[in-house]
């Protein structure tokens, strides 16, 4: 492996072999992107800064969303305990009885569950994950100066920010935030008289998510255009790293599915404000008959889940791409089955549009139609299994560096397997009769798309932190964070399978009137204790992250992980335009690790003597 010294130096290659796009000629003195504090840090149009904005905003929301889960877990784990101590924070949502014992208001419990789902799914795992890494890595890894439209890219972040502000304000509405579940099914979400959260809280929720969709669409348009149009010389589609492939396909799914959600919301808003009856029919509420006739609440479910199912792939595909890259780099082996990986991502994306009704097996939908959705749902297991097989084969026989990024990537694979297997149960409409709306479902999706996506995100953060801030995160704290979170996550979600198999329903405030479920009280208390510990363990990560930005160990070489992709040919802290001189040209795929006696051969290295570069 000492042969690596025979390779040509990056700087020399960029200078002699790079592509001169005359970029720096028309950015002479003042750089319009970062000339002052506001244009550099706030209204930045530089993709790397926008990525950091997405990441830190996502982290803020992750803390809020997770803290909410801690509060409702306390209710589930310790329903008898007084929660008066948290009254200064939650105010009237803690109802104190005559004995001085404070309980979480039931409406607020639902609001917490709703907001937890909304925040984590949309704000953290969509914007925080794909927003961060698509922005950071697409231009850097395909050899572009920036996104196709830096302005739209900036707007994408600020629409997300605006959506966040509105959602945050809704938390303080006197009638409470939206509380009809993150899916916002009508008629509950339409009728303010049905629940206090369906009033102004629901209105703000709809407005916020509409802005959020605008943000996703602006981002997605940019990602797709950049990938198709701004790849550097030599960077054919089949030479793109799997990260870029996954962001690209994620953006396509987002652009096809989020508009459908907007249409669903449009009809929901019409029902709420214009007196239409798209989703309402023959409803009695508080003893009164509404005059809405002719609508169908199932219609909303179809529109929602036409987004909702692709949405889970919007969340997991970037995590898959990141993990593939991290696994290959840190096991010093080419990714196993590169083309199979790309084809699986594409087929998962395609299938994701044909399975939405598996969320609606019990909605009264025609059971014969269910068969169609069962079959396609089970077929998704095939490309998913291909990917898992490839990840494990990549690890097999590698010279593995067990650093934090790698641990998280392996943890991702573990979570994806554990959570994916239960998906095969839930995809069967017959088994769903027993399992639907139980903790089995909660366990399944938290492991497969919640924890797994978080692990992919953590892998990405630890791996690309040196590129973002020019410093390393602390490895010891990182490993502590990994093992604690890994064990914590399994201890929280594994027992939920048993609750679910026994039929314990999700979204319930308490189980004290159901004798059947009283046997699970100690298990619920256990889950809550672990959830609280795991939540507070994340402080280690947050402290490590912010401390390392300013005081972390400095990166001293351009390519600290000895990686092949183009972002490591930029300066340690790349300025606007990413490469100070020419942009690199690409001569090979990104996974030439341990090839012909070389430890790694970066993508900018021209073919060596007698070498064939397209062997994959």
């Amino acid at each position, binding site marked *: 492996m000492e042969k690596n010294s025979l390779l040509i130096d990056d700087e020399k290659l960029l200078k002699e072999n790079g592509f001169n796009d005359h970029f720096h000629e028309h950015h002479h003195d003042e750089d319009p992107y970062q000339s002052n504090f506001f244009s550099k840090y706030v209204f930045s149009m530089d993709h790397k800064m926008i990525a950091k904005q997405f990441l830190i905003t996502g982290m803020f929301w992750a803390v809020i969303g997770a803290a909410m889960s801690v509060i409702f877990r306390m209710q589930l784990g310790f329903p008898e305990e007084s929660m008066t101590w948290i009254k200064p924070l939650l105010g009237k949502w803690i109802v104190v009885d005559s004995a001085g014992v404070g309980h979480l208001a039931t409406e607020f419990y639902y609001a917490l569950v709703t907001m937890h789902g909304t925040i984590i799914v949309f704000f953290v795992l969509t914007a925080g994950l794909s927003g961060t890494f698509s922005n950071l890595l697409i231009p850097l890894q395909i050899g572009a100066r920036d996104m*196709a439209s830096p302005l739209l890219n900036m707007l994408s972040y600020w629409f997300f920010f605006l959506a966040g502000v509105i959602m945050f304000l809704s938390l303080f509405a006197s009638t409470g935030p939206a509380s009809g579940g993150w899916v916002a099914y009508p008629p509950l979400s339409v009728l303010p008289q049905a629940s206090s959260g369906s009033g102004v809280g629901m209105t703000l929720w709809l407005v916020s998510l509409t802005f959020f969709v605008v943000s996703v669409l602006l981002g997605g348009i940019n990602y*797709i255009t950049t990938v198709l149009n701004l790849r550097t010389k030599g960077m054919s589609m089949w030479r793109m790293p799997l990260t870029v492939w996954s962001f690209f396909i994620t953006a396509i799914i987002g652009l096809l*599915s989020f508009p459908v959600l907007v249409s669903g919301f449009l009809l929901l808003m019409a029902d709420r404000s214009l007196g239409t009856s798209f989703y309402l029919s023959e409803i009695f509420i508080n003893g009164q008959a509404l005059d809405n006739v002719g609508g169908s609440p199932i219609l909303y479910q179809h529109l929602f889940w036409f987004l909702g199912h692709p949405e889970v792939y919007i969340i997991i595909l970037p995590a898959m791409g990141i993990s593939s890259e991290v696994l290959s780099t840190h096991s010093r082996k080419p990714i196993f089955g590169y083309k199979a990986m790309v084809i699986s991502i594409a087929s998962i994306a395609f299938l994701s549009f044909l399975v939405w009704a598996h969320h609606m097996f019990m909605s009264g939908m025609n059971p014969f139609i269910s068969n169609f959705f069962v079959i396609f749902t089970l077929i998704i297991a095939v490309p998913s299994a291909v990917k898992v097989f490839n990840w494990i084969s990549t690890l097999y026989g590698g010279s593995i560096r067990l650093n934090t990024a790698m641990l998280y990537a392996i943890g991702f694979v573990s979570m994806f397997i554990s959570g994916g297997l239960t998906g095969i149960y839930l995809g069967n409409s017959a088994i769903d009769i027993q399992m639907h709306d139980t903790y089995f479902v909660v366990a399944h999706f938290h492991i497969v798309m919640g924890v797994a996506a978080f692990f992919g995100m953590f892998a990405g953060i630890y791996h690309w932190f040196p590129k973002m801030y020019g410093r390393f995160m602390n490895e010891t704290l990182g490993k502590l964070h990994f093992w604690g979170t890994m064990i914590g996550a399994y201890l929280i979600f594994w027992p939920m399978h048993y609750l679910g198999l026994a039929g314990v329903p999700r979204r319930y405030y308490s189980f004290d009137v159901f004798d059947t479920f009283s046997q699970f009280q100690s298990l619920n208390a256990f889950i809550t204790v672990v959830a609280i510990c795991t939540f507070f363990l994340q402080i280690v990560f947050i402290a490590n992250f912010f401390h390392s930005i300013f005081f972390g160990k400095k990166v001293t070489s351009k390519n600290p992980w000895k990686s092949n992709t183009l972002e490591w040919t930029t300066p340690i802290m790349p300025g606007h335009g990413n490469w100070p001189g020419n942009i690199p040209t690409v001569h090979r795929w990104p996974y030439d690790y341990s090839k012909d006696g070389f430890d790694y051969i970066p993508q900018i290295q021209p073919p060596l003597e007698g070498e064939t570069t397209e062997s994959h």
Partner: protein
Amino acid sequence: MATVHKDRIDYRNKIHPHKLALWVALGSILMMFVALTSAYVVKRAAGNWLDFDLPKIFYYNTFVILLSSVFLQMSYKGFLKGKEYVYKYMLVAAFIMGLAFVVLQYKGWLALHSIGIELSGNPSGSFIYVISGFHALHVLGGIVALILALVFAFKLPYKPTYRRKNRFELVLHYWHFIGFLWVYLLLFLFTQ
């Protein structure tokens, strides 16, 4: 500058990134309407559906928006061939036809109202209002783009540069798209 564009076009930017971005965006706008029309089909199949004939004015109006597209295309041809007069006045004609379309759509809603089809009645009628109303919003967006094009046409000296051609094409493609989107919506409503 011009040479920069040229090199880039030669080897990779066969389509200008802004144009590709527009097309991708049009794809997602299309998805919104596909969702609305699919919702229409699903709701109709679920029963409790009031059948009625669409007012004739919606059909006539189709010619207005298509004519507007034709005018804009002629204006574009004029722009390319250096016929400044055709470029400017066909652009005005396209703009006027665009405005006329929105006004006539409003007339269409009044006609619906006069035959007793209300926004808040049976969903079969509400769908017409929502689908055509949402389409009209997109037309209004196009009208804003046409106003910008008019400003460029009348304020700036005529000069068919690469940048201006590309900018004009963005407006052109969007405007054709919403015209044909209306044709799709109308054919859909007609055949249902």
